[in-house]
């Protein structure tokens, strides 16, 4: 089955009110080209599930978001995501704030078809008081109570990978795939943007196949977009764009999101975006971060 599609094809699969999971972590390997396409679409009232960064911040700032399910929203080297902050401080979004691991449990439960996964994580904290719908249950095996972390079922997952073939076999060459495999498995449909489009025989080598973290029957569509994670990183190919993120953060104080969007997003396709930020060669030259 040939699963290659365009960015427009992905957006055509999205409808108002969907729950969308976004892979990556903070400023790392976010499917930003797909996020920009959503920002340029009419889709709204989304519930966003993410280990959040600028993906969450931009969608909130553009008024696309009804609710965010999150453990953090951060750009790492800029700890506080400026537009997510503004959305929260204006009270304009609903939230379900959970521990990083609870979020993983929720995705795993959805992936496995379980209504919940029991965990001690969250006990004694405001994760429970602020999410009264998260139930605490008695264990049948001991006298302790447990949090029943509910499944977080996704309508759609959006992730960005290093390489993929036309059948939806996806490879992540970065040191870590983060939780992308669980976002993909938890979703009815998973759309992948990829730096490189490879022939299927690329995976004949075990060292390549070892970097495939989910099976192609969980991949719905593949879009070839080199540089598509910018301004987030896509290790080992490029780092995150520090200067771009600094300007993005400044925009939150000076003029708000509309100025940033006017410059980099509104009515622009990915080619125009990449020209505006310095070109694909510039993106691919961005130094990898040192932690």
């Amino acid at each position: 089955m040939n699963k290659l599609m365009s960015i427009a094809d992905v957006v055509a699969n999205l409808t108002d009110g969907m729950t969308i999971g976004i892979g990556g972590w903070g400023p790392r390997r976010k499917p930003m080209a797909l996020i920009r396409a959503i920002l340029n679409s009419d889709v709204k009232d989304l519930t966003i599930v993410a280990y959040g960064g600028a993906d969450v911040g931009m969608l909130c700032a553009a008024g696309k978001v009804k609710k965010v399910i999150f453990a953090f929203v951060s750009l790492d080297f800029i700890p506080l995501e400026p537009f997510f902050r503004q959305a929260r401080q204006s009270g304009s979004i609903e939230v379900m704030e959970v521990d990083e691991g609870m979020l993983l449990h929720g995705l795993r439960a959805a992936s496995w078809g379980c209504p919940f996964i029991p965990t001690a994580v969250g006990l004694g904290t405001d994760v429970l008081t602020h999410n009264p719908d998260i139930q605490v249950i008695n264990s049948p095996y001991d006298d302790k109570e447990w949090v029943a972390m509910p499944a977080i079922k996704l309508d759609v997952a959006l992730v960005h990978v290093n390489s993929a073939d036309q059948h939806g076999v996806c490879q992540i060459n970065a040191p870590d795939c983060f939780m992308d495999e669980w976002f993909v498995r938890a979703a009815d449909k998973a759309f992948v943007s990829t730096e490189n489009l490879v022939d299927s025989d690329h995976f004949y080598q075990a060292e390549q196949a070892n970097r495939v973290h989910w099976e192609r029957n969980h991949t719905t569509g593949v879009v070839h977009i080199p540089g598509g994670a910018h301004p987030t990183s896509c290790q080992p190919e490029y780092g995150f764009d520090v200067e771009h993120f600094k300007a993005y953060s400044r925009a939150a104080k000076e003029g708000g999101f509309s100025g940033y969007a006017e410059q980099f997003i509104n009515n622009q396709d990915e080619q125009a975006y990449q020209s505006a930020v310095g070109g694909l060669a510039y993106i691919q030259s961005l130094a990898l971060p040192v932690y």
Partner: protein
Amino acid sequence: MTVETQQFTLAELMICAAAEAFRNDGENLATGIGVLPRLAASLAKQTFNPDLMMTDSEAYMLAQPNPLGKRDGAFVQANESWMGFARIFDNVWSGKRHAMIGPTQIDRFGQTNISAIGNDYQQPKIQMLGVRGLPGNSISHANSFFVPNHNKKVFVEGECDVVCSIGYNPERLPKGYSFDDIDIRLVITNLCVMDWNGPNKQLRVISLHPGVTFEQVQENTSFALCKIADLGETAHPTAEQLAIIRQFDPHNQRAMQIKGNPDGLAASVQG
């Protein structure tokens, strides 16, 4: 008898005090979040607890801690194993970990907040990071806290605005749990070192940094503190410790962590 051979900064004194948190951890994963806690864990591993485990803050376990900041091209980090983000939880929830973080708020129960400030959760006054992994850390393994600016905004009255981590609060203790299930260790601040071993798990001062008085610590804390009987001065860094700190912080990032980078012998006179 210790002979003073070198000057040291308050940041260096705090690194050495924080390293003590990891002294008896044995073969546990030590996670110091932020420049000074990370240097503390590195120092502990290089000196009195070589069995400590550390990560590269990304996806690998390290046999030797990485120095902070840019490293030259010849540097090869000493990977011990892969440990991706999802796998970190498997280790965290097994209990064999000790994390040291710098919360925005700490209350008298040892509960902490890094999520948001303000009384209205639906519309916080200041949105911060989110709870991150604190709920899981706090109920799974040992935790210590690092406070670069000890004041009443950090050590708050009442409870934290958003309780991100479980502490010694009887009102919030889950069914079947006791205080023995919760393990909060040291609090290292720019004024003193404290633990939670006072009566009923009250916060207790166990050493004062040079020039600091107990009264000064109490004045900068919104709830009542107690102190150990023979309250003395926080141990000064040794020449060996200072050399190791310099090795792991070649760009002197530690100098940027405490406002004004005060001298270690003059902690009490800082603004």
